[in-house]
């Protein structure tokens, strides 16, 4: 058991020191992980995958069984302003999410996007960091 724990810790340490993959292409391309919520205390995890085909940004919010395809995703290089939307649905009906944010640390592989989100039910802030 002690050996297994040691092995687990060793693998975890190796994963921690693995350098993040650089990304020198389109600034939105990649996997972004962060949180969204009404406040810093009450927030949920948020994962957004984005790609760029030369004409449009596409992607997915929270990939999985309840994933939300990105809609109307744009990057305005003037100020590196990011906008994207998503349409979800639950028992109460459709939810239309709108995210507006800004890229910080553009030059770095672990750049971030922070801003606000709103839907037809609630609103809040979000922050994502590129992985």
């Amino acid at each position, binding site marked *: 058991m002690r050996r297994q724990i040691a092995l687990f810790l060793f693998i975890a340490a190796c994963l921690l020191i693995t*350098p993040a*993959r*650089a*990304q*020198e*292409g*389109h*600034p939105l*391309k990649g996997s972004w992980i962060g949180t969204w919520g009404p406040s810093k205390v009450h927030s949920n995890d948020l994962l957004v995958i984005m790609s*760029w*085909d*030369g004409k449009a940004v596409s992607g997915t919010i929270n990939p999985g069984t309840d994933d939300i395809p990105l809609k109307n995703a744009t*990057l305005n*290089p*003037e100020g*590196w302003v990011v906008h994207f939307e998503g349409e979800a649905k639950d028992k109460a009906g459709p939810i239309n999410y709108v995210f507006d944010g800004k890229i910080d640390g*553009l*030059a*770095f592989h672990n750049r971030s996007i922070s801003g606000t989100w709103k839907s037809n039910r609630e609103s809040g802030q979000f922050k994502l960091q590129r992985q």
Partner: protein
Amino acid sequence: MRFIATATLTLLLLAGARIAAHHEILAKFDDKKPTTLSGVVTLVDWRNPHAHLFMNVKDPKGTGVLNWAVELESVIDLQDGGWNRDTVKAGDSITVKGIAARDGSRQVWGDSVVLTATGRRVLNVTLTPPPPPLQPRPVPRWSDKQPRLGPIPGGVQGYWGFPSSTVLMEAGTNIKMDAWGLLANIADAPKVAPMQPWALALYKNRQSRFLQDDPMYLNCKPPGGARQFQLRYGVQFVEDRERQRIFVLVGSGNSNYRIIYTDGRGHAGQVGGDDDNPLYYGRAVAKWEGDTLAVDTRGFNEDFWFTNGGLPHTEQLKLLERFTRTDFDTLKYEVTIDDPGAYTRSWSSGWTLRWVANEELPRHLCQENRP
């Protein structure tokens, strides 16, 4: 008036002297902060990518001394200039003229180092390509008359260096940049290449940061794409005709290499099980068109800068490169850049490289996070 003219000429000469360093000097040092230091050497750090002198300089605000770091050219270039690790020793008194670090730390780029005892200027580097022969020499060829790109086995050693241009811009444009691709006037950025708005903004961002984020220098990333043919330490072609492939050894690329296949294979399936993994040097296939090797490369990753100066690219990048040895000592390089992810249309450029005879490719090893 004469003083101003002399000072201007001196500054131009000093600026011109910064030609060999392995990265953009202005990324770290500020040419608006000319600095002169006189003091005693405490340590000589003779290592690539840059040699350093450490020296004690009298503290102008007190009675003690302050230790300064003086950054110099690479050991490879200093040795080419005839200098060695004993040219300056600990205990020597020196005067250094240069430019100070942007961040205010006690570091200076050493444009000139003079030994106080003799008044001799030392550790200076002048890069000059080999003189062209009086008569152009014929292209060396294999027995089937195909041109040779590399050294002749059992005969003449050599590599290709001293590119006629170290910056990539669209053919027909003439934009002022320094040797590392830093624009003299950032307003010229849109003229460099037909960039999409996001790519232009990113390029301007890199320029405004004096190219300090260049992953080739920060993280030792390989110089994929056209950049490998615009670097200080050149390239060497090793032609493996039996296996129908050409290895391009990259002198500035941390001793890595690129493979160009000439056996008719396609871009997919070059490496079993690795078809979808984009690479720093992409996947290159080639064929001979007369005396020109035409290379089609695609499958690049986005983890590096494919040019000095930081022009962006995406995984959609395709390069069509044409290599023509026009005479023994000249290699003509032409490239067409096709990247609909970053550019509004395809565009071309080209330059020549000089044959550096009787020398092996310089062996430059990047050392991550070492200035």
